[in-house]
């Protein structure tokens, strides 16, 4: 036992010295990214590694579930572990990780911010420092059945009332009016925020103070409940649906409208998964008369860990990955809507994905979830339960709005005392 220990120590030391002694060996940047089915990430990594002798990317894929990814980053970063240099982060994590002191501020390096949409930048900036570069965009939007609407002589809806009217007219016993993600989890908050914002609601002021109007909170919750209980364009089973379920229903041709993320479109155009190829149109989420459409951002970003030993090299990686060229490759290969606005006017991209024009319209009005490190806890403890309660019909929207407001304030107070 003792001998094994001594031998191991000796070997480790020898190894350490050989590594240290090799001045020429390249700096390895560990880059942790969510699952990528397209192969675009691998291609970018290969391109980078071929072009750089002194920096090599060690590409690591994370679990596909966003929650799992979050928890894993948290346990690694909280341990001040230097095994992560560059990480991809979902937009609501940026203020959280930045507040914890886990991310490097990128103010001096990230200088071409005007190339990006306003919403993602709001989300990656915390207390006037920017902590992440948007990599590819993601935001909620309304998918509709072009064929059904055209046949009945409807224009795509712009307001809440129009959506309800069309859905009621076009739904049948086999076809729901409007489907979305209604399970008690982060997805339902994203869907609901679009309604809240679309009614003119605001959550936090730039200083992070809660300014939500209780009346608008109640109205937006009421509308959500009405979809199920009054207008009956959404079935009660919505409370068991996440993205996969609602999308499957829409692609089966069993729904007129679907609130979803951009990737729905490529699935809808794939004949092996979809019965509605070429029948799907995209518009921004509906809004109240006199208000603007809103979309909840799910942008993925690249950040640098505070514990990296190679900040300079890590930035080279981030710079390359978020360049126009790289975002174009990600768009062409993976169908990921780019974060840089310039890619949307690229002829090659537009030719392959004409619908990116419509995505652009959505991203212009897209907003990050409330930018505070307290947001994840607010969402789970203060926002999701009242939404679930009104959807299930066990609570009035007024009581739910009051609960939500009180709950959010309590959690924000905890972050400031």
């Amino acid at each position: 036992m003792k001998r094994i220990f001594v031998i191991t120590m000796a070997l480790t030391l020898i190894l350490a010295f050989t590594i240290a002694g090799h001045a020429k060996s390249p700096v390895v940047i560990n880059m942790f990214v969510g699952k990528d089915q397209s192969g675009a990430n691998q291609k970018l990594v290969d391109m980078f590694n071929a072009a750089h002798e002194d920096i090599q990317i060690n590409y690591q894929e994370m679990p596909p579930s966003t929650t799992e990814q979050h928890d894993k980053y948290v346990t690694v970063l909280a341990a001040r572990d230097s095994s992560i240099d560059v990480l991809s982060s979902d937009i609501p994590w940026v203020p959280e990780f930045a507040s914890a002191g886990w991310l490097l501020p990128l103010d001096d390096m990230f200088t071409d911010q005007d190339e990006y949409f306003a919403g993602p930048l709001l989300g990656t900036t915390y207390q006037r420092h920017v902590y992440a570069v948007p990599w590819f965009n993601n935001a909620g939007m309304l998918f509709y059945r072009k064929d059904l609407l055209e046949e009945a002589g409807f224009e795509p809806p712009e307001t809440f009332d129009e959506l309800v009217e069309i859905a009621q007219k076009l739904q049948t016993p086999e076809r729901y009016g409007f489907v979305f993600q209604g399970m008690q989890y982060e997805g339902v908050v994203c869907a609901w925020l679009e309604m809240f914002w679309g009614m003119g609601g605001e959550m936090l002021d730039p200083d992070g103070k809660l300014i939500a109007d209780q009346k608008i909170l109640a109205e937006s919750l009421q509308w959500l409940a009405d979809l199920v209980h009054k207008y009956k364009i959404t079935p009660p089973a919505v409370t068991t649906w996440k993205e996969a379920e609602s999308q499957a229903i829409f692609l089966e041709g069993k729904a007129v409208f679907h609130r979803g993320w951009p990737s729905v479109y490529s699935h809808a155009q794939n004949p092996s998964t979809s019965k509605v190829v070429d029948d799907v149109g995209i518009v921004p989420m509906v809004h109240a008369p006199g208000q603007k459409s809103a979309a909840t951002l799910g942008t993925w970003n690249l950040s640098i860990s505070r514990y990296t030993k190679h900040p300079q090299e890590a930035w080279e990686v981030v710079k390359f990955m978020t360049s126009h060229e790289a975002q174009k490759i990600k768009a062409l290969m993976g169908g990921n809507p780019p974060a840089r606005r310039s890619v949307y006017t690229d002829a090659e991209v537009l030719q392959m994905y004409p619908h990116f024009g419509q995505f652009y319209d959505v991203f212009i009005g897209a907003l990050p979830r409330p930018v505070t490190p307290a947001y994840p806890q607010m969402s789970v403890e203060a926002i999701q339960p009242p939404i679930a309660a009104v959807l299930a019909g066990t609570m009035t929207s007024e009581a739910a709005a009051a609960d939500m407001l009180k709950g959010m304030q309590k959690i924000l107070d905890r972050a400031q005392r």
Partner: protein
Amino acid sequence: MGAQVAGSATKGRQGLSESQLGRALVTPAVLVMCAVVFFPILATFWLSLHEYNLKYPYLGQPFVGLRNYIELLSDSRFLNSVKITTLFTVSSVAVELVLGMAIALLLNRTFKGRGIVRTAVLVPWALTTVVMARMWAWIFNSEYGVFNAILHRFGIIDQYIPWVADTNFALWAAVGADIWKTTPFMALLLLAGLQIIPRELYEASMVDGAGGWKRFWSITVPILKPTILVSLLFRTLDAARVFDLLFVLTGGGPGFATESLSIYTYRSLFVNLDFGYGSALAVATFLYVMLISFIYIKLLGARTER
């Protein structure tokens, strides 16, 4: 370690007295348990008296006394997790006891095939909980799950049900999986107890003309009572600590529908990164479990005194 202590002492030619030897042999184990259990629980308690959130490093780590505990009392998520834990524990243990007893009585009457039965019993017991939770997730699958298929075939449901995604069913799906895993073990413990009941007792009461049901209540249950209580204690404690099964099968969801005390504590620590409040939750979980054992031990003690 113990051997060294004892070995060097024999060299003194005199040998150790029984009580010296006893203490020497026990010391290492006691020290180790102190190091891994008692010091950490004290540390948890100490943390729970502080404000300490890794997400808000600017708040520092001030001592806040019992504030975290006071906040617990008005935390609806905490009260919910106590409710969920209790529901899970009571319902799964109750069913396991009744089923386990029935199976033990059944097995006590058979003589052939003991080996097969024993192996069958041990499979659910030995199976890794995480593995069994994923297995049940597949069985309960809302699209292709065999559970839905069977219920559908017998006309009990006309539509497949997303068992673990539905607020009304998720907890019961978990209870069902737990019953599967632990009933056999319960039966095993009870069977061992049944086997030490002398046959003559039954024969004597048969002569008295007592029926099966009466014999069960007048002979089996009183004699088996300590075994029943001990098995119940083990199972209740296990169920009250439930983490793996719920974490993997439902993730504590949907919403908080299956969030047990252990899961809430875990989330408070490693999702909210609130090490102060999370530690208070950990202490609360500890107290909850200790309260249960205290009740059982009182019951057991009351019996032995008689």
